[in-house]
């Protein structure tokens, strides 16, 4: 963690009382400011709220919204739900993995891309689906996926 992240976290704490029920909003703020929830931040939050640091970790790992590592600039999510699976979602994932050189849950070394698998986006009519930085691309093919990735900077 860098000095400015530490300062940001102190800044965030100043807006809270130190009550246990503030854990989730604080985690959201920290992730908003730092981009993920580093270990040091969890320890600081634990001290601030006077709860065990393992419990902070427990909560962070319970919710999919929190990240434990620094995320890439672009978040790529490929659906692996039943509909997408049937229509080649698996192949799309393989193509993206190959293109970026990382597995789902990982981030590229230059912190440009993070890759995630998702169980279902609820856009099954458009299957297979890939979502880039919140924008969904339906009826995707391996080539199209690669093109989209190449177009990002």
């Amino acid at each position: 963690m860098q000095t400015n992240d530490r300062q940001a976290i102190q800044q965030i704490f100043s807006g809270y009382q130190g009550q246990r029920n503030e854990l989730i909003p604080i985690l959201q703020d920290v992730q908003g400011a730092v981009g993920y929830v580093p270990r040091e931040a969890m320890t600081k939050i634990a001290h601030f709220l006077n709860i065990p640091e393992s419990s902070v970790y427990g909560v962070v790992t319970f919710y999919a919204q929190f990240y434990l590592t620094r995320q890439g600039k672009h978040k790529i999510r490929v659906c692996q739900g039943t509909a997408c699976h049937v229509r080649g979602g698996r192949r799309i994932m393989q193509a993206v993995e190959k293109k970026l050189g990382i597995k789902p849950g990982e981030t590229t070394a230059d912190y440009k891309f993070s890759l995630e698998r998702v169980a279902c986006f609820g856009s099954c009519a458009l299957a297979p689906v890939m979502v880039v930085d919140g924008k969904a691309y339906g009826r995707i093919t391996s080539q199209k996926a690669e093109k989209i990735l190449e177009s990002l900077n």
Partner: protein
Amino acid sequence: MRIFPKDMKEIILTIDGSKVTVPEGTTVLEAACSAGIYIPTLCSDEGLEPYGACRMCIVEIDGIKGLPTSCTTAVSDGMTVRTDTEEVNKVRRMICEMLIADHPADCLSCSSNQKCELQKVASYLGVTQQRLEKTKRESILDNSNPFFGRDLSKCILCGRCVRACREIRGVGAIDIAGRGDASHIATITDVPISESVCESCGECVDRCPVGALAVKTEILPPTREVKTLCPYCGCGCGLVLGVRGGRIVSIRGDTDNVVNRGSLCVKGRFGLDFVGAHDRLTTPLIRRNGKLEKASWAEALELVASRFREIKDKAGPDALAGFSSAKCTNEENYVFQKFMRAVLGTNNVDHCARLCHASTVAGLARAFGSGAMTNSIGEIEHADCIFVTGSNTTEAHPVIALKIKAAVQKHGASLILADPRRIDLARFAALHLRQRSGTDVALLNAMMNVIISEGLGNKDFIASRTEGFEEFKKSVEDAVPERAAEITGVPADLIRQAARMYAKAQRASIIYSMGITQHTTGTDNVLALANLAMITGNLGKESTGVNPLRGQNNVQGACDLGALPDVYPGYQKVDDPAIKKKFEDAWGGSLSEKPGLTLVEIMNAAAEKRVKGLYIMGENPMLSDPNLNHVKEALEHLEFLCVQDIFLSETAQLADVVLPAASFAEKDGTFTNTERRVQMVHKACEPPGEARQDWEIICELAARLGYAMPYRAPSGIMAEIASVTPIYAGISFDRLEENGLQWPCPDRSHPGTAVLHQAKFPCGKGKFHPTPFREAAELPDEQYPYLLTTGRYLYHFHTGTLSRRSAGLEIISPSAPFEINPGDAAREGVVEGDLVELATRRGVVRARAVLTERSPAGTIFMPFHFKEGAANMLTNDALDPVAKIPEFKVCAVRVSKLNP
């Protein structure tokens, strides 16, 4: 079993056709259990909050839909419960099969085989073969802790470890992380447990129903188990030692023991390797041509006896002195002081209590007439307010700390902490006052100033139970918080809040230890705490009082049994002619009415060659005493030094004769813990080689000096103790097996005394003593700019003679460190791990730097367990004028970084 208030309403319900009566608030599971009905469980456990996770304990209850879990369902009147129906067992069997499908099937090679609760539940339900397809799990091993291993592939996620660590220990090293299939027990970011905040207490291991958590060394089951006591601290935890082939193969907490109810700390649980250590003394040693050489018992005893006789004949009995031992049993301490007094003829007998709680004994004896913990350990949990000062309870008295944590976490008590360092208890404190070391009196006087000026005192108590209040009141009139703030550095407002919080509580308990006593103002510190309790009437009732925590396992007993220069057993004064006569009649011969020298005085007298012969039983002044250079010089000046110990300690290395003794695990007898509870020690194995019981050795010496001590067993010694010691008069071994007895216990039908001073004080009325503030003997100055304070670590004990023989404890806490505030470190150019030279006016040591906010700016902390960085080379031997306790807690020190 949970303890319910006596006036609880009773509930009648029907379980499996029989009527069961239980107090309101009981769970259905507890009710069934009390009626002798077995309900299988996996996640519920003694002392943990109901959890309801495993669903093994489901039952049918009329009027409740589905199958409720009995561990989380409270009983109600007229309830009808069925625990063993077809439906219930079908579901239980299903759950059990699912757990087993997900579990490695290597019972035979698992260390929990036959103890495993999953096996037990499966066999009860008749689940024998695997019907479900095995979901393969790899073993996920974490062997980073030196004492126990974790194999999470065996984990059934019952959550007991998580809850034990959080609810009972107040640590929270582990929790359930992840979700759904990925749920698992984790430390923060899944680091190995040794890198987490885990304190290696083993509570989670003891509570794991399966083999997921297992002690590394407990491979073979014991063939028999022996109940005894932990030899480390004054908590007095009950231990169960498992023995096989004459060796200790397992250790667990004694769940029947009222003090610890099965909980232990890392030292008691895992730190007993010293008993079987290869370097135990096994034969007597005699110094010949400057070297200690093996000798026979006859030769060694004869030599000791003749040298003592010679010195006595030549220079008089007061040229001899003895240090008894807070590690030995009551019976041995009694025999030792009797030997010094009746056989050698001197009152020069003392022990290391001088170095820890002499000021408690002196201060509380003046204020109340008795110098012991006023209340009991178990009561702490039910206080509304706990004022802890000068006690790093988590590390020095870990199991007592559990009661403090429970009072706060479970029962909502407020904790006030007054300690310069940010110790672990600060996490639980409502208020933390960080006074400058050595300014306790100023802080306490200011609190009392607030209480008196705001009218928060207990006028009835002051009027009816105390004397000297008016004069005392005048003495704190000027001690306003603003003035105290200047002296102590604690903001005036915080002092006011603390005063109000303490004074307004219904039941407020004061807990203190060496941070209060080890000062040149030690007696004043103790008197000030006594004043505080008296003005608020916090004495003589449950969960109140002034509670000094005694350090060693049997330091209370060593004091009780007269290993002190001015009193016989039971604090009976040696200069009282009637008392002297009583002991002369009991022991035969004439005794000296002259109070003897204290420990530090004996050292000084030795340095000046006034004391020429010294007999040391189980003590190591070469590490425990202040100003070690002086101690060494004193011991070298002696004409004759005899040391009786289980190891060749730093002190024994200087001896003329060394006598090998038995360790706690090899003896019968009693220890008295800090709450005055006399409990049984039982022999688990034989002493190594020719080592013998301490009391037997003393009796042999007495016989050679022409005095018969014909004891056959420790029980006989206790009978003699009871006959001459009023506070122990009702104590005998046959009464101690269950829960022991707390003194005073004046006769055989007396149940013992949990709370002292209920109707009156031993001295009649409680006495107020004005305690004007004085500075410590040596303060930081230009030459020695930092304040040095000393203390303990959780992982070691005292001078490390015992704990440092545990390989595991050495891994966790290996070498001499000192703690320094990061700001100070930056100024000195010191970074974490640097080897630094610390110098005071008395000595120099080297130690490694630990940078931490625990240390306030300007203060350096050093534990005293380590011989390679012996804190007591540095400490000041300036004495409290009354109690003669040295000022271990404050001196001035200089820090210089060594070039790498």
